[in-house]
């Protein structure tokens, strides 16, 4: 029981940290892409949109090569640690948050920026109020970012190694139990993963709906 608790806690912890880092990167970057008017903007957006569909195993492979003992970042000794999983999950969810942030802000009336500036907003105040106005789709971006990492298995397996007590998360544990033929265990862990995902999304949806009603 304590092992399941530890696996669950680690799953939530790494995915939450990866989502928060993705938000810290994706919110300003997506805003810059949505509001900016510069050469190469469409090209960067197309790269980000492609990144939204990055296969986790490909991310796992690239991050594993980077963090491998003989790799460029091998000296950091991060391979097969929870930090490696966080890095891989951040690579997966950051484009999702960035792309959906850009889309959320692009959906606002473009004259709203000029209106806020025309009322005396500083650039920072303008961005904060645009975020406020787009808060519901931005929350959806957060949910999609979290959803993309809590449920992925390929990258966590490849860079975490599924080490018992250290890097085993719910998805990698499900794969292991299935490979051993322990379908009952695998089903129980799957149910747990679904409940956790549901509860977190329920909380975010509640916040989103509250925002809509206000």
């Amino acid at each position, binding site marked *: 029981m304590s092992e399941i608790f530890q696996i669950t806690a680690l799953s939530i912890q790494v995915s939450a940290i990866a989502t928060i880092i993705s938000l810290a990167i994706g919110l300003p970057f997506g805003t810059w892409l949505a509001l900016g008017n510069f050469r190469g903007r469409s090209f960067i957006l197309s790269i980000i949109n492609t990144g939204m569909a990055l296969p986790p195993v490909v991310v796992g492979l690239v991050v594993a090569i980077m963090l491998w003992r003989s790799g460029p970042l091998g000296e950091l000794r991060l391979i097969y640690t929870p930090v490696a999983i966080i890095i891989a999950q951040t690579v997966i969810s950051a484009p999702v948050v960035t792309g959906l942030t850009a889309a959320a802000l692009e959906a606002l*009336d473009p*004259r*709203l920026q*000029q*209106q806020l*500036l*025309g*009322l*005396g*907003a*500083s650039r920072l*105040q303008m961005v904060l*109020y645009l975020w*406020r*106005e787009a808060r519901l789709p931005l929350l959806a971006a957060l949910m999609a970012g979290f959803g993309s990492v809590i449920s992925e298995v390929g990258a966590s397996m490849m860079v975490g190694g599924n080490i018992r007590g250290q890097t085993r998360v719910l998805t990698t544990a499900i794969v292991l139990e299935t490979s051993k033929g322990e379908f009952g265990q695998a089903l129980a862990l799957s149910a747990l993963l679904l409940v956790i995902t549901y509860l977190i999304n329920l909380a975010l949806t509640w916040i989103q709906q509250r925002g809509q009603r*206000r």
Partner: protein
Amino acid sequence: MSPFITIQDLLIQRNGRKILEIEALDIARGETLTVVGPNGAGKSTLLLALARLLKPVRGEIIYDGKSLLQMNELDYRRRISFVFQAPLLMDMTVEQNVALGLKFRGTPKEETQARVGKWIKQLGIESLSKRRAGQLSGGEAQRVSLARAFVLEPELLLLDEPFAALDPPTHARLLEDLSNLLKQDHRTAVFVTHNLKEAARLSHRIAVIVGGMLRQVGTVQQIKAHPADDAVEAFLQELPQSG
């Protein structure tokens, strides 16, 4: 007395194409100048340039004795206020929308409440103060937008066809109210419209912009009697029984 705003040799381009050229234009303190012209003539561009939301490629705007480009951008924008054709209200209550510009300026809460209360009353929207922007009609939303601009008590008020999208009775009522407010307030204002009747109602002087160029400045009577060129004459002829 020197003019409040002087525009000299102004040229604004978009993608290398000229969208507005003004050789010279003065606006006196307390004056309401109405800018008329056909759609796409460059009227809104003038307002955006006056709000420092567009950069000219040539020429300058002198505001209260100082070149606009030498003034701190944010400090300048906090001395003016802009009303667009669409109300562009935020998803918040009427009160919160009206208080928005004051919040940006860090105005103390008590003063904000007093000023918001005063202007909500002036524009006859007290009964709507707790409503959310999405629940308002077009006319109500535009009243909120006007209150949001007036509450800032700006030195310069820029109005870009604020009533164009409203039905005729609402349009007429709001025009009447705005005309009274501008008369009471003696605020400097630049009002864009393509309706000469509206222009005559709100101001003494009218600036005619056609094809991205300021063609003539004068009273409606002067412009009608002596159009500066063929473009102004053609514009006047195209107007449906205005003025």
